[in-house]
């Protein structure tokens, strides 16, 4: 119970700081502008293709591809995932680096808070910020559902994938922020690590064999792909949760080392 109050204290504090500063509003604004723009162009593209398909004799192979899931949502998820790589370092870089730089961590770490309640409070806050952004994008689908039937189940899987992907990236970003007291460095390191865990699967085509397979399994993108198809598999869930736990655990170790190094 005591630990929980520490966690909620941190969560509330971080959200207060997010809502008080410009980063939340600026990143949120551009995230929604970009997501809205891509959703709109996807819908436009889908309607043009559908029109052409209706006019021509229908090809069964083309017809199978002609649904909102393939032509609107999958491209949207892919774009949102790319935006995520840029967005996450902006949101996470200040989390721990700023505390160190400004000296506020001296109070924070002398309060009776466990390292886990600090880490989870910060992680929970930044995840909630992202969820707020993501919740706004649901309005696109609501509007879209007036024009065409939307497969809400597949949409749910896609959004679950988005949330898990975001949580994984944010955990990595939080870890990057624990490494330094410079926000820019935290941002650059976070961005580089994200990009690396993103494209590590590409090696598969070059390396092949078991090594290539292992690399592919490690790649975030590979697991995210399944969610965008509307598939939820335990394999991908386990991957995401271990990814999140791994980086939160590294963050905890990094915080512990603070006491020993001066």
């Amino acid at each position, binding site marked *: 119970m*005591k630990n929980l*109050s*520490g966690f*909620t*204290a*941190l969560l*509330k*504090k971080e959200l*207060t*700081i997010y809502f*008080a*500063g410009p980063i939340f509003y600026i990143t949120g604004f551009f995230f929604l502008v970009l997501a809205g723009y891509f959703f709109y162009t996807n819908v436009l593209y889908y309607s043009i293709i559908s029109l052409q398909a209706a006019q021509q004799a229908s090809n069964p192979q083309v017809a199978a591809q002609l649904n909102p899931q393939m032509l609107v949502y999958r491209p949207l998820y892919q774009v949102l995932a790319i935006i995520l790589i840029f967005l996450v370092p902006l949101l996470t870089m200040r989390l721990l680096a700023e505390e160190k730089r*400004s*000296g*506020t961590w*001296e*109070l*924070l*770490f*002398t*309060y*009776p*808070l*466990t390292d886990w309640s600090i880490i989870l409070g910060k992680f929970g806050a930044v995840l909630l910020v992202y969820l707020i952004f993501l919740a706004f994008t649901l309005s696109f689908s609501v509007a879209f559902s007036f024009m065409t039937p939307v497969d809400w189940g597949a949409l749910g899987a896609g959004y679950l994938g988005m949330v898990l992907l975001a949580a994984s990236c944010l955990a990595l970003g939080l870890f990057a922020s624990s490494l330094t007291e410079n926000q820019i460095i935290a941002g650059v390191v976070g961005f580089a690590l994200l990009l690396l865990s993103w494209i590590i699967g590409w090696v598969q085509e070059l390396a092949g064999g078991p090594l290539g397979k292992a690399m592919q399994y490690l790649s975030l993108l590979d697991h995210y792909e399944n969610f965008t198809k509307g598939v939820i598999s335990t394999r991908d869930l386990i991957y995401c949760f271990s990814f999140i736990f791994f980086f939160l655990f590294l963050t905890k170790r990094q915080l512990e080392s603070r*006491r*020993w190094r*001066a």
Partner: protein
Amino acid sequence: MEMMIEVQDLSKFYGPLQAVNHIDFQVAAGEIVGFLGPNGAGKTTTLKMLAGFLAPTSGTARINGFDCVSQSLEVRRSLGYLPENVSIYPDMTVTQFLKFAARAKGVEAKEETGECQRVMAACGLEGVEVKLVAALSKGYRQRLGLAQALLHQPPVLILDEPTIGLDPSQIVEIRSLIKNLEGSHTVMLSSHILPEVSQLCHRVIIINRGQIVASDTPENLSRQMGHGSRISLTVKGPEAQVTAALQGLPGVSRVASFGEGRYLVEGGNGKDLRPELARLLVQQGFELLELKSQEFSLEDVFLNLVTEEES
């Protein structure tokens, strides 16, 4: 007597640099102890180790019976800590920050508002409740730092330079606030302002180059330091003759003249020279206008100890 702070053989290295060198001290419950030392002596490092912010290289520190390393969480629960140059989140308002601190310190949700109001009143923060911390003056920020340390009534308070950056009237307020904690709280405070320490503290610990060079009540320190006595005199009479007469008295080690009949006599052997001086001057026919024993101030003690070390 219950010991609230126990430090044994505590050392801290920053790389090859030794900041704190095997120090030992204890602070009893209800005591107010001043921690003095020149810049870089290891004061802040020691206080940070007590607060559980830094781990010692060797030795142990216990607060309220809990070990600062292995039982860090319990230590932090019994502690209010004001860091040197306290930094507080600039994007939060005073109330928001205090509520966060109260919750982080485990104050019950229903007591939160009352507890925040109590410390705000104690530290004179009324009127700035909704101000952003970024907009506070240094004095108010320092008060806010002190207010958060007082939240949840911790039995032990560690205050690193509590009155720095405050104006004289605020200093008086904060001092009386600390004085009021006497008995109910154990306070360890570091300071550069020696009169403040001698007013506030039951005991003074002086640290230099990472080692404790003295630990006693301010009065005892002054007495020990004096070796003998220091007496100021105002005497009417020819200066050369008066000086010669004073120097002739056994036990007088030094006589200084400041003109207009004012003299300072230092005795070397710890004997009170006042009666003999008075008798001597009257017998020799000088007019004795004033005779006063001068205390050695804590400044003298401090400077003496610190320079002794260095020479």
